[in-house]
């Protein structure tokens, strides 16, 4: 085996240019596949990160009416839906998939939040408990968060995110500034940032709406102030943080079940639903994968053509080395030895092509990424499979030439010299 490998590498090295040109088909095929797979992987990862927030594992369980989030801006609180009791929250926190949970109210803002003569367009105001920030994976960048006492004592303070600082507060030092929210004045005590990086990819109109809102920023006020600035007895929503990304779906569904067990709305189209972002991510991933799988088939054709090229060159090589084969058979090499020598050479040739293809594919994927902004994630299992597959191509397409070499009559073979 080692002897065959040595002979194979020597053969390839002796005919460097020819070997490279033979490998080119395999290199192009593998490079195309790796580039496509890397792009698919990258896109999938990006979708997942964008929709579920990288590592935060948070799930929103909100009131929905006919599969649309219930907007309470202009409507009354729905009948038969009580506020979320602490005992219910405790039940949610006791779920094995849930790390933490916090209730909140929110409004999508079209008007009604002001700083001096600037108004906020888009974004959210959320009435939150102190533990909301840790559940939502938000950390203090500047200033501080609410204390339990401040919430208990209806303090008119608020925390904003960076978008609010950049837009509504015009990048002024936010601490101590006064915002008018729902007709009341709130003093900014802190700025929070999300621990996860967020670069949205817009795939649907719904995504666009969501991200437009998110990018416009959020103002957080104590949940105790919500009845003052907005409405009494408004049912809250719940944010849960799952133990892991894989637990998100279960955590969301179980929380929704618990919450739905506490309500008896007259309008039965209203119920708690989890924004199952993981499922949405998977659907989008499936979509991008199926589109790109067609490209993989096209790349596979290139590999087939590459394989035929290898077979062609191996046949030429057998013809060129007829005398060598004749001699080897004359001095006692069995058919199988000759067969393995040529099969090894074909397999080494295509495997090398595979390795070069993987390297070129990675390079190509990076170039595509830089040029088009498409994210790229190198899939090492795919790279390994690609090299193994090219080796198989070498063995399959090397079969005919090797068989031909092994079956040469030594007398005829020696006579060709």
């Amino acid at each position, binding site marked *: 085996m080692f002897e065959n490998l040595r002979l194979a590498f020597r053969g390839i090295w002796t005919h460097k240019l020819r070997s490279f040109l033979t490998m080119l088909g395999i290199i192009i095929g593998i490079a195309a596949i790796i580039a496509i797979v890397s792009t698919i992987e990258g896109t999938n990862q990006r979708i997942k990160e964008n929709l579920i927030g990288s590592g935060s594992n948070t799930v929103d369980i909100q009131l929905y009416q006919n599969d649309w989030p219930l907007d309470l801006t202009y409507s009354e609180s729905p009948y038969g839906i009580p506020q979320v009791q602490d005992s219910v929250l405790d039940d949610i926190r006791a779920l094995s998939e849930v790390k933490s949970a916090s209730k909140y109210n929110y409004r999508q803002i079209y008007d009604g939040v002001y700083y001096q003569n600037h108004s906020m367009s888009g974004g959210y105001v959320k009435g939150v408990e102190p533990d909301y920030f840790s559940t939502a994976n938000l950390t203090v960048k500047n200033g501080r968060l609410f204390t339990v006492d401040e919430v208990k004592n209806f303090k008119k303070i608020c925390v904003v995110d960076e978008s609010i600082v950049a837009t509504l507060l015009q990048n002024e030092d936010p601490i101590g500034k006064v915002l008018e929210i729902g007709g009341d004045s709130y003093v900014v005590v802190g700025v929070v940032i999300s621990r996860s990086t967020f670069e949205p990819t817009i795939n649907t109109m719904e995504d666009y709406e969501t991200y437009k809102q998110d990018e416009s920023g959020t103002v957080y006020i104590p949940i105790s102030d919500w009845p003052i600035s907005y409405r009494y007895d408004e049912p809250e929503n719940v944010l849960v943080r799952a133990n892991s990304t894989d637990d998100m779906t279960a955590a969301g569904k179980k929380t929704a079940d618990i919450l739905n067990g506490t309500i008896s709305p007259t309008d039965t189209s209203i119920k708690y639903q989890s924004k199952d972002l993981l499922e949405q991510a998977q659907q989008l991933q499936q979509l991008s994968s199926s589109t790109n799988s067609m490209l993989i088939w096209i790349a596979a054709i290139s590999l087939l053509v590459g394989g035929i090229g290898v077979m062609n060159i191996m046949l030429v090589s057998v013809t060129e080395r007829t005398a060598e084969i004749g*001699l080897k058979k004359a001095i*006692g090499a069995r058919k199988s030895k000759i067969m393995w020598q040529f099969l090894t050479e074909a397999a080494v040739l295509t495997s090398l092509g595979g390795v070069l293809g993987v390297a070129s594919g990675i390079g190509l994927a990076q170039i595509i990424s830089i040029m088009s902004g498409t994210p790229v994630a190198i899939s090492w299992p795919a790279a390994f499979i690609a090299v193994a597959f090219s080796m198989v191509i070498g063995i399959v397409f090397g079969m005919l030439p090797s068989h031909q070499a092994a079956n040469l009559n030594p007398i005829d073979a020696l006579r060709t010299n």
Partner: protein
Amino acid sequence: MIVKLENINKVYGESGTETSVPALNNVSLTVNEGEYVAIMGPSGSGKSTLMNVIGCLDKPTSGSYFFQDKDVLKLKDKQMSDLRLHSIGFVFQSFYLMNEENAIENVALPLSYAGVPKREREKRAIEALTRVGLADRVKFRPDQLSGGQKQRVAIARAIVNNPKVLLADEPTGALDQKSGAAIMELFQKLNDEGTTIIMITHDSGIASHAKKTYRIVDGCLFHGLEEGSDEKDN
């Protein structure tokens, strides 16, 4: 007795048809251990066919062939390969050396087919090269050697497995007179050391180095170098 051919006939093409070409005609030959035999004949006389049959590269159309009491005609392809590997050493007119490999690697080739470990292969290859007088050229590639030296490497390759018979087909055909003479001296030395040699040549001068000579004419084998000097050998 190592080689025993009895009434060997070899016909190319379908026997009995117009296109059939008889190459060997009722040839019988016995070679004993330690003998140095030359078979001489002009081109087309059937000497290469005879060598192929003796070397187990080809099977005759009829007759019987025993190599060390083994019925060669009954051997399968794999067994023929093994017989060539372990019992027969080939020396060809055009050396058939692999240009990318050095002398040691060329000589060690049959040992690799015999499954000899690498270190042992190298050791034995160097020993064989030393026997043919190339101890100082073991790392040279064929293109760095003269014609005579290349043939020595080929001879070293033929003897590295300690074969029962060394078969040489026109071993000096591609060499100048001086190198040819040196190769003949080497053959003599190997024969003196006990190697059985069967040499095919068209050159009577070269054939005269052997202790026993045959002539082949139109596929028929005769004793002796001169026409009419001996009876047909059957």
